[in-house]
């Protein structure tokens, strides 16, 4: 498929995400430090040296949002990466081996799913006074992998009886080799779809934690920018509008791209029937 044939939704979604990644990678280099305060220039409107104006401490809003983008990319990227690998291995192992291994692993998945996810994330980050970014990633990953495990297990169950897997087994290939070379590659389509939606989900949960004051201990995460902006809503809606729009754009991008990828990679879940 060339770009000209892609659906508008796909192009828009991919553009949003590409813009986000570019801003996260390059943005911090082209803006000043998000922590520099200028108390002579408090709540300045957009213009001049501050394209998006300044916040209640005279900090440049654009710099804060750009640095927040990098933080969001690091957090969501790492969380999704960890969950993808752990969930795929757990799910593929359970589905391929079956029996008591499957039973045990899936019981663990059931327990984690029988619990509102954000509650667990919240309880874990609240254990420490000021969580580091790494700790937040840990808290998000602790139940984030179960979605991937369920998808991987369902797919692995289906492929383990296929001829090429049986052929590999008959030719004496070991468990790890069969799993990594033959089972996992055939699961990747639905898992990539899951990861695309999951990325947006992680962005939202991380922003919620930060909004509640339980996120990474930096003032420029999108959720904490939103929380600060909310308390100045009566004077200026800009401080809340900008980080809120940033979150919405990334999540929308993930959903648009996820929908199109699902239609291409995962025929079971087509939305346009």
């Amino acid at each position, binding site marked *: 498929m060339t770009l000209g044939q892609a659906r508008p939704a796909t192009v828009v979604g991919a553009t949003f995400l590409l813009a986000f990644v570019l801003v996260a990678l390059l943005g911090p280099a082209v803006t000043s430090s998000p922590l520099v305060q200028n108390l002579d220039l408090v709540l300045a409107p957009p213009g001049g040296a501050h394209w998006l104006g300044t916040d209640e401490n005279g900090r440049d809003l654009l710099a804060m949002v750009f640095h927040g983008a990098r933080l969001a990319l690091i957090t969501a990227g790492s969380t999704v990466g960890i969950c993808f690998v752990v969930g795929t291995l757990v799910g593929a192992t359970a589905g391929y081996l079956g029996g008591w291994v499957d039973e045990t692993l899936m*019981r663990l998945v*059931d*327990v984690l799913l*029988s*619990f*509102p996810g*954000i*509650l*667990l994330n*919240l*309880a*874990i980050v*609240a*254990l*420490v*006074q000021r969580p580091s970014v790494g700790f937040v990633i840990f808290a998000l990953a602790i139940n984030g992998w179960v979605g991937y495990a369920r998808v991987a297990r369902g797919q692995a169950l289906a492929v383990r009886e296929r001829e090429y897997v049986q052929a590999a087994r008959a030719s004496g290939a070991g468990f790890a080799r069969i799993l990594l070379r033959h089972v996992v590659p055939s699961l990747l389509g639905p898992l990539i779809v899951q990861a695309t939606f999951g990325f*947006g989900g992680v962005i*939202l949960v991380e*922003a*919620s934690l930060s*909004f*509640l004051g*339980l996120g990474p201990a930096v003032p420029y995460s999108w*959720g904490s920018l*939103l*929380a600060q*902006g*909310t308390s100045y*809503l*009566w004077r200026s*809606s800009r401080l*809340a*509008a900008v*980080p*809120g*729009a940033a*979150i*919405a*754009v990334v*999540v*929308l991008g993930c*959903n*648009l791209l996820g929908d199109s990828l699902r239609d291409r990679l995962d025929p079971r879940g087509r*939305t*346009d*029937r």
Partner: protein
Amino acid sequence: MSAGLAFALRRLLGALTAVIGVSLAVFALRHAVPGDPVDAMLGEQATEADRDDLRRCLDLDKSLLGQAGAFAADVGSGTLGMSCHYRRSTVMSLIAEVYPRTAELAVAAVALALVIALPLGIIASLRPGSWLDGLVMGTSLAGIAVPTMWLGPLLLAFFYVRLGWLPGPADPPSVAGALVLPAFTLATHLAAMLARMTRASLLDVANEDFIRTARAKGLSAVQVLRRHALPNALLPVVTVAGIQLGSLLAGAIVTEKIFARPGLGTLLLEALSVRDWKVVQGVVLVIAVSYVVVNLLVDLAYAALDPRIRVR
């Protein structure tokens, strides 16, 4: 034993396992990370007597096994223990005070989400690919992407600050209309999801044989939709809405903070900020149990309505 009873027992057993698993997790949480909660609650300047007192209240003077026993006794007695911050209040009495506020918010949000989503999903499914369908699908995508903690303040700024039409954080939660903005904020994401589900589900059902039969025997489009398509298509949608009721008990935390509403979330955040671990444990446990119970009821209701489920 009948298939229905076996199904109910299996689900009940699953729910019990989940609640026990959650209790263990909640207890383990407190011990998972090093650091003295007494320091966090009282600060460095506290007197030794105060520290001992708090240590006793948190059961930290007991062995790990003793603490687990005390926790089990607290759960067993139904009090969930005494709060170490709001002395003289049991954790359960603190929870009972705010639980109805969160429950009414979650129920209102689910009801509102269904009221918004079902008509939109049905309209979109009638002419797939039309501009109306595109509009509904586009709006619902935006509804899924918009963060709750952004939508809430925007609604407040507009309807409370600027127009003054609806009550806001400064008004008591019992005043008429106080539920409107919080419920709408909490419902948006769910409504968007359900509208998409309704559409997809109706389009799925439209290809079924029984719909073709209904059409072939000369029923009008409205009759086919009302008598045959909707009952089949909406069952999964309403189920998801029911399951979401449990999640919304936890999801309400952000909404309650935005609107400064008393509730389980507000209580949890307060308890977290003063490290009142018994209250934290209690709230987490109560939300988890509510979630499990709601899911169990939805499962059983679904199985009662759709016999195909039980055999799977």
